[in-house]
């Protein structure tokens, strides 16, 4: 699937939601639907994800997998202290992850705050584009990230400004307060409106990642419902966390979200992306995620438009492992660059 597919198909989604729900997506209808989904047994889910974590991977597959992990990374800086200089440094790392090895692939995107989008776009220059073409996208967090506590108009303006500045992807946060209060209609509406705000004047649109902030939703049942809600409302990706709340991405949570995506694909034929973000630091852990993706939704999901890692520290560990695989030796942290 290419970027163009995503851009042309998405506007139809809310109508499809009405079709699937059989009524307007208000609180009551959504509640009936989301609470009618089969529940999640926490013990069973965690057992399954632990079992997936024990697969051992062939060395040739591992080389491929490490490269693929890099190609799936949203290299991220989301600090109050971010400056254009910091973003330029991040972009340089994204373009050339391993200065010692030109064969090293590039990451999928850089992920920054909305006001840093111009700096990122400028720094990327000719390297800015679709990760499918070996280029690097710009993702911007929006909608009063990370808390989401702002008026809808502000969230929409936040989104539109980032898109206008050249963001290819918008990482929005859902209103967890509204979700936990059972106001599913509000959450749905906000996602759908942000989705509209992702549209560009030329008729294309930025891809929308919906951050559920699973650490605040607390139960697997909630995470499952929020995943369905985000997809019904038009999200192109469902993303675990902002990285600002613990626990962030976990393997069981990601497995659960992948199962939702699999079921949605089975029901509608449409492919939704999944992005675990926050807390994945080791290459070894990233490989467990790849195994989980491959065994749950299939290997076709291991591409930048369907799976991403939101991470900053992960890249350097993958680079170290990659070198170890090539040379047989471990090099130290001083042999990979900090961004």
């Amino acid at each position, binding site marked *: 699937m290419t970027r163009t597919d995503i851009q042309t198909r998405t506007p139809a989604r809310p109508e499809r939601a009405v079709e699937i729900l059989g009524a307007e997506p208000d609180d009551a209808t959504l509640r009936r639907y989301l609470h009618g989904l*089969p*529940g*999640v*047994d926490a*013990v*069973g*889910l965690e*057992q*399954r994800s632990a079992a997936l974590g*024990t*697969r*051992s*991977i*062939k*060395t*040739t*597959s591992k080389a*491929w*997998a490490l490269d*693929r992990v890099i190609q799936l990374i949203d290299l991220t800086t989301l600090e109050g202290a971010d400056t254009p200089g910091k973003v330029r440094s991040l972009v340089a790392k994204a373009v050339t992850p391993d200065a010692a090895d030109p064969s090293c692939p590039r990451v999928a995107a850089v992920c920054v705050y909305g006001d840093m989008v111009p700096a990122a776009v400028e720094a990327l220059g000719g390297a800015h584009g679709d990760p499918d073409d070996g280029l690097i996208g710009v993702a911007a967090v929006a909608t009063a990230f990370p808390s989401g506590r702002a008026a809808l108009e502000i969230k929409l303006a936040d989104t539109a400004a980032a898109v206008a500045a050249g963001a290819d992807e918008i990482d929005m946060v859902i209103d967890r307060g509204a979700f936990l209060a059972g106001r599913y209609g509000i959450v749905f509406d906000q996602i759908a409106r942000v989705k509209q705000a992702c549209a560009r004047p030329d008729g294309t649109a930025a891809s929308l990642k919906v951050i559920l902030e699973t650490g605040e939703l607390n139960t697997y049942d909630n995470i499952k419902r929020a995943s369905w809600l985000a997809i019904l409302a038009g999200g192109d990706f469902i993303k675990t966390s902002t990285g600002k709340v613990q626990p962030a991405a976990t393997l069981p949570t990601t497995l659960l979200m992948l*199962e939702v995506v699999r079921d949605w694909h089975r029901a509608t034929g449409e492919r939704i992306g999944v992005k675990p973000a926050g807390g994945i630091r080791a290459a070894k852990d990233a490989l467990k995620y*790849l*195994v989980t993706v*491959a*065994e749950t939704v299939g*290997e076709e999901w*291991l591409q930048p438009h369907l799976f991403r890692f939101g991470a900053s520290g992960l890249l350097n560990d993958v680079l170290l492992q990659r070198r170890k695989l090539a040379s047989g030796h471990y090099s130290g942290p001083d042999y990979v660059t900090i961004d």
Partner: protein
Amino acid sequence: MAFLEYAPAPESRAILSLRDEYGIFVDGEFRPAAGASFDTISPADETRIATVAAASDDDVDAAVAAARRAYTKVWSRMSGRDRGKYLFRIARLVQERARELAVAESLDNGKPIKESRDVDVPLVAAWFFYYAGWADKLDYAGLGADPRALGVAGQIIPWNFPLLMLAWKIAPALAAGNTVVLKPAETTPLSALLFAEILQQADLPPGVVNIVTGAGATGAALVRHPDVDKIAFTGSTAVGREIARAVAGTDTRLTLELGGKAANIVFDDAPIDQAVEGIVNGIFFNQGHVCCAGSRLLVQESIHDEVVDRLKQRLSTLRLGDPLDKNTDIGAINSRAQLERIRELSRIGEEEGAVRWSAECAIPDTGFWFAPTIFTDVQTSHRIARDEIFGPVLSVLTFRTPAEAIAKANNTPYGLSAGIWSEKGSRILAVADKLRAGVVWANTFNRFDPASPFGGYKESGFGREGGRHGLLAYLKSPVSGRGVAK
């Protein structure tokens, strides 16, 4: 390239240092048997692993005599605290040699290394640790102060969990102060013989545990032996019946843990993805060679198609092959005889009109293999819904109401285990209350813990293993002289 081409990641056999030939283990030493010998093979490729003794009547006699001597002179005089020390020592040695034991088990039995490594061997250690703790606390076992051991226990164990069943038998027997003559199954003696080395390492007094290998005749000699005070058997219902007949009218106490045809009941409000995992774990764990396997899937009619669909999809991701490979999900069938039985019953299932579906997987050229198989459109009158297949074959039946589910679940001569899948707690409790099964799992399956008693109703046997109840099968009250599980 296919990412899922996982590495062939076999555990090395080099960790094993096996003898070429094993005698019987009597009085703390290996000695040649008077009887003949036979080869134990790896079911994955039919190669010979070692030659083991087929203990004769005389060999069994010597073993029982050794056990009696050890009981009278040493073990019955030893304090509970000291017995506990030996059990703790054994538990720690099992942990230390865990990898070796896991490799031996997978080699001899055919089960995937990930199961022997992550389930069997850790549970073995847990069982010894648990009963080690009981050894000096028998006053609190529920039989009043100072309950007595029975004496010499003859224990006959099956091939499906060779080392785990050994632990289930030996740990409570020793904790309660009995001495033991154990006969491992004919096709899987290897881990018991390695365990004998552990007993030597632990410095267990000679004769407290004796191990005689062999086939049915050896077992029969043990059962008939007049100086055995207690027989504990795990295995098929047919053999269990013979044993019950043989000890009827004698003083020998008996506990039997026999077959099962467990119902795994999936209600329409079940956590569906976890239920599918549970169904897979229930019947394809250890190639279905599990007496408590969830071999009858009772699924509510309204979600039948969806569950079967998801199940097939999940089964397509299972990896069948070399048991020693860490990525293997389904190992080898334990023996040719068992493979024939599974084939035979599957053929009958097709003839009776059930619809067969088998996962597509490459079957190795040598060894004994059976692809994971599901039968749908199974009726309660079909043989595959009634007979224990003891293989990776699932029979899917439907029900409409909880009452019907309970009736169908209980409609079996067995009663060892059952599973319930529902998100509704009150329903789980109400249904569990009405199931005639020794173990009922809710939203999980095939979970074991040394503190939890295990055992069956009806043709699944009597007596309980595990927990405080497990001790009662090896103790008698000082007042009445009676135990509980007679």
